């Protein structure tokens, strides 16, 4: 199973890093992009919510909706050799959504009507799913523009992997539904089109919700109706992109139970959605060397330089970590069994948080190591 990641990613133009929160997806995405750029590609990494210090390392001072070239001098200063170019951006989901509406709206008054609507303001802000949709839409836009050899997407920290895979279809399937057609149709026509049953549903709904809310929602949907056609096309294209053979999903996990379960679940969902699985990256693995050697001999070797008492504590600490290393090994075996090929890369736990370009370069080195297995 010994493979080079570079070989496995050949011909792929889009790498989507998925996995549960807290496993180091952003770090892995950045390192992956650096590794690809190091091999001569022009790469853009799209991150959603990077740590402040990581953003600083990449030279990203604020949210911006276009990728910016990371100054090659930064890499040179960090001793990281880059033959290609690394571009980076921090996605602003709200702005992405607004831009999309602005582009798809047939005229200025429709656009303003959507922007002013309170429901829209909610939708494009914090509601689950809108970040995911924005991220894929941005990816699609960058892909279409064709400026980059490769795009790496760091997915939003979602509790539910499905939010991401289904983001493009969720909006359209609703927009094509009867409820919207009803609300968009002129009042007289509506009852003919949808029949009396639905009319009753909406009169009950009015009673439950209060009529003003319904008016707001209808206004939102009517306003959005103006951009509906474009929206649908966009969502279809975006959905297609996720299934493209130049796209690959990399699953990032840590060896802990929850991320492992989520990785297995996500792999299954990829299968169901007919989306391509590229490989597994297990991050924050305890160093393999902990499993080597014999504690009694180690204690003997440490007694002289450290003294008996400190040696004892150093051994006890190693023994704590060894139990985690054993768990890690079991987790990795389980992941490999459940996820199968094509490749697994292990990234060992770093002593400090990985933020600067030098340590990102090291992670990139580990990711692309020829003997990764």
């Amino acid at each position, binding site marked *: 199973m010994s493979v080079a990641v570079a070989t496995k990613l050949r011909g792929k133009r889009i790498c989507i890093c998925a996995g549960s*929160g*807290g496993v180091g997806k952003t770090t892995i995405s950045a390192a992956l992009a650096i590794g690809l750029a190091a091999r001569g590609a022009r790469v853009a990494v799209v991150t959603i919510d990077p740590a*402040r*210090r990581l953003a600083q390392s990449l030279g990203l001072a604020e949210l911006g909706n276009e990728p910016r070239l990371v100054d090659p001098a930064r890499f040179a200063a960090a001793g990281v050799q880059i033959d290609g170019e690394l571009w980076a951006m921090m996605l602003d989901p709200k702005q992405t959504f607004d831009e999309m509406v602005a582009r798809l709206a047939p005229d200025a008054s429709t656009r303003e009507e959507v922007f002013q609507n*309170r*429901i829209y303001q*909610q*939708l494009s*802000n*914090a*509601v*689950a799913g809108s970040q995911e949709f924005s991220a894929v839409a941005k990816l699609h836009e960058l892909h279409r523009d064709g400026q980059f050899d490769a795009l790496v997407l760091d997915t939003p*920290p979602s*509790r*539910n992997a499905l939010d991401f895979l289904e983001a493009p279809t*969720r*909006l359209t399937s*609703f*927009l094509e*539904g*009867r*409820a919207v057609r*009803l609300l968009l149709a002129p009042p007289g026509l509506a009852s003919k089109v949808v029949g009396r*049953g639905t009319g009753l*549903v909406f009169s*009950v*709904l009015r009673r*439950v*919700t*209060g*009529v*003003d*809310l319904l008016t707001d*929602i209808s206004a939102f949907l009517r306003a959005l109706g103006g951009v509906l056609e474009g929206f649908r096309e966009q969502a279809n294209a975006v959905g297609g992109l996720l299934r493209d053979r130049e796209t690959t999903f990399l699953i990032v996990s*840590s060896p802990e139970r929850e*991320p492992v379960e989520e990785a297995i679940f996500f792999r299954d969902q990829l299968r169901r959605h007919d989306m391509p699985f590229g490989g597994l990256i297990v991050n924050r693995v305890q*160093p393999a*060397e*902990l499993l*080597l*050697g*014999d504690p009694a*001999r*180690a204690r*003997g*070797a*440490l007694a002289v*330089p450290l003294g008996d008492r*400190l040696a004892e*504590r*150093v051994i006890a*600490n*190693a023994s704590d*970590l060894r*139990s*985690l290393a054993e*768990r890690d090994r079991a987790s990795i075996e389980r992941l490999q069994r459940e996820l199968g090929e094509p490749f697994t890369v292990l990234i060992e*736990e770093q002593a*400090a*948080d990985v933020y600067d370009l030098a340590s990102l370069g090291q992670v990139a080195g580990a990711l692309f190591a020829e003997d990764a297995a």
Partner: protein
Amino acid sequence: MTPSAADRAPGVLAKRLLFVTGKGGVGKTTVAAALGVLAARAGRRTLVAEVARRQDVSRTLAGEHAPEMGAEIELAPGLFWTTIEPQGAMEEYLTDQLPVRALADLLIHSRAFTYFAAATPGLRELLTVGKVWELSQPQRRTPGGQPYDLVVVDAPATGHGMAYLAAPRTFADAARVGPIARQGRIIHQMLTDPRRTGVIAVSTPDDMPVSEALILHRELPRQMGIELERVVVNAVQPRRFSPKEARAIRAARDEVSERGARAALNAALSQHLRSTANRRGLERVRRATGRPAATLPVLFEPTLGKAEIELLADRLERTL
């Protein structure tokens, strides 16, 4: 609740509703479970409510048998667990609101309504918070539902968490009149009443999760008009080696060639580095919030079970 039970409960556990939120992967579920254990020990009838689709608490506390969605399961004396799922919450709400069961059924089974509900932005959040509110009422609206002294909500990650807290007011504002507006206001009132409700941010000592907890500390007063109750920092590395010992350990690496010994030295040094970095994270919380964070130690256990949660509850009690 008996007065003596309230006396035994630390301040934060004497409330009716606790929202536990924080960045993904920091251990919100563990902290929510530990808080639940503490409250139950203090004699409070406590419910830990998970938002949507994850059954970790039950797995941790009760083993693998997965209860049905929406059921309130007693895990230990006085400690209950449930999961809140928006579709179920909506069906309950409609049944409760409409005078005739047939009308509720009509809505629940209408495809137009299902689409409508799925696509209305924020409705999922509203229904979830509505259910949380219902669970925390002294008089339950759920037929046969027993009241709880405390409901601990294992809430979604910080950004989305805020969307949940804000949903009732947003809908109240949008609806202006009618039942949703009225109920939205009542729920918002409870969420912003510091005697009844508290928001707890969970973090690890790492840079990014601390930043997110501090953003919540800053934004809660701005967006909701309430203060963050407490920051709980989870998975703190113990201070195992003094700086002087760390120097001795570093020096020993040049003298020792036995591979197990070298691995142990490396492990000790990285533990020391992490522990030192952890202290900086804790210090950031203290400076920004004006008080030390409540802390939980990292456990060197492959998985967390009931015994570990009990242990963490003991430790949390000391710093809460």
